[in-house]
């Protein structure tokens, strides 16, 4: 049997108080998995822990069969080349243009010649639909365009896992649908596994194969979107049917 790409084993994360407790799940190659849950349930913290940014106080995260927090910093940097993270606040460097932001991982982490870097950036910006904005500063484009630029940067090294924190939050339905389609295209074309934190049920339905629902820092339910929608668990039911009653 194929080993899972990502394993979250009994992970607890806390700062002043526990945010996540005893979280367990596995994610396979090429899956699109949504992390769901109400505000403050620890979705973003979990995403950052899975991405190697917030160490757990107990438990472990295995990426590609190796514990990311047991690796040396050099080994971890090597592993991070196989991951892409698009943050909720896009985290683009305001002093650089959009194309410089997207090119940064290629320039810093590969030996590719400049013409190849330019072509890859052009292709990726075209793929996310913002080729014409390449020379603008992030401050001079809209929120949706910044999200797409962040996604382009997160995916420029063709990572095996892409983490996206609320990629469609606050966007109009048309732009949100385009971003959803881009995520699915990354999975289909690059074969990337995609882990998305989201509140947007429409987006989740359009993209995710499976969802992991968190409540009060624990995994409340896992399954396909249809399975979760049919769930009689009170927390899950309320999350999916709050608007429809």
């Amino acid at each position, binding site marked *: 049997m194929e080993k899972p790409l990502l394993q979250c084993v009994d992970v607890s994360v806390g700062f002043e108080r526990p945010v996540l407790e005893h979280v367990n799940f596995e994610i396979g190659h090429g899956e699109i998995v949504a992390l769901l849950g109400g505000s403050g349930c620890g979705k973003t913290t979990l995403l950052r822990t899975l991405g190697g940014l917030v160490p757990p106080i107990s438990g472990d995260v295995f990426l590609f069969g190796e514990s990311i927090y047991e690796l040396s910093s050099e080994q971890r940097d090597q592993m991070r080349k196989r991951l892409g993270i698009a943050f909720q606040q896009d985290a683009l460097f305001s002093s650089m243009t959009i194309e410089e932001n997207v090119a940064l991982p290629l320039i810093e982490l590969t030996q590719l010649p400049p013409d190849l870097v330019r072509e890859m950036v052009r292709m990726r910006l075209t793929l996310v639909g913002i080729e014409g904005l390449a020379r603008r500063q992030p401050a001079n484009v809209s929120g949706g365009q910044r999200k797409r630029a962040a996604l382009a940067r997160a995916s*420029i090294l063709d990572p095996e896992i892409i983490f996206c924190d609320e990629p469609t939050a606050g966007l109009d339905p048309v732009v949100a649908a385009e971003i959803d389609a881009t995520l699915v295209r990354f999975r289909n074309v690059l074969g990337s596994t995609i882990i998305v934190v989201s509140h947007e049920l429409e987006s989740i339905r359009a993209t995710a194969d499976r969802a992991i629902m968190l409540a009060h820092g624990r995994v409340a339910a896992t399954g396909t979107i249809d399975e979760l929608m049919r769930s009689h668990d009170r927390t899950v039911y309320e999350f999916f049917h709050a608007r429809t009653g």
Partner: protein
Amino acid sequence: MSAVATAIERHGKTAIVRVRGDVVIPTSRALHSTLKGLQKRRDVKNVILDFTDAGRLDSAGIAVVEIARRSLQRSGKQLELDKLDERHRAAFELAPAATAERLPPEEGPSWLESIGGHLLAIRMTMHELVGLITESARQTIAVAAGRRKLPAGSVANHVLLMGANAVFIVGLLCFLIGMTMAFQGVVQLERFGAGVFVADMIGWSMVREFAPLITAIILTGRTGAAIAAELGTMRVNLEIDALTAMGINPVRFLVVPRLTALTFALPALTLMGMFIGIVAGNLVTSLMIDMSPITFWAHVKERVTLGDFAYGLGKSFVFAAIIGFSGSHLGMRADGDASSVGRATTKTVVVSVFFIIVVDAIFATVSSITGAH
């Protein structure tokens, strides 16, 4: 991942490049170089890329092919892709530009537009600065008249931050300046038997020039930069917009308390700096030329008048206004991203120091012409 290897076969003017292995980010350079080489060869008209033995293609592999396709086309040659399997065809979805219409890159402004843009920006800056000064004056008058009030404790808090916390650094620097001047003055004036006049020199220059200037420059770096950074961050976090939206005047709420505090703190620190600088001079002269403190202070008293103190303190009020308005104006103009806060902070220091020195020179020239010294 296997390294990419290429074998070239020639059939007349056609070159067949057989690709072996993965063409991915770490390995794509080899194929890129091979195709570049073929583009330059005059005896090659067509290039066929044979993917029979090719492994995985990623964005870098596709970019290599796209660059080759365009460069060969420009040279009147053709690129053909042969024996692509399903995985390879799927990977070419990463290059939507092959089918999509290419958007033209945005053109920058012409030189004439750039000059016009700069002039308009200067006009707008001046307009906003005058607006800020006018609004600050209006709000200050409203507060003084009791029609409006400042946030509770804000002025005291800022005086503490700008003034009390700067006492040590201002005191230390003025002490060192006074000491250095005394050393230099004693050495030079003693050559003419005029060592005793070093007290006049230190007293006069500390009160009229050095204490106001040094204190203003320290507070520019310490307080002006802090004002710009605070207000810039508030602008970026939309806090200033939130105040406006709530109907709270941001100039009264944020700028007036800082300006008021600076107007108290800078002259007070300057006055302290004047005395500390003179005391340092006294210390050096008593050690170097055995001048008694009584003689030293008698010379200072004879030379330095109340008018000199008024001149030095008057300048420090103007310097306080320069620092306060530069920091507030540039901070409030930060334009929405983190780097603009850094730019506002740096600009505040540069602009303030520049205008402080310009104003100081104007004061010196006017007092010299009018004989007010």
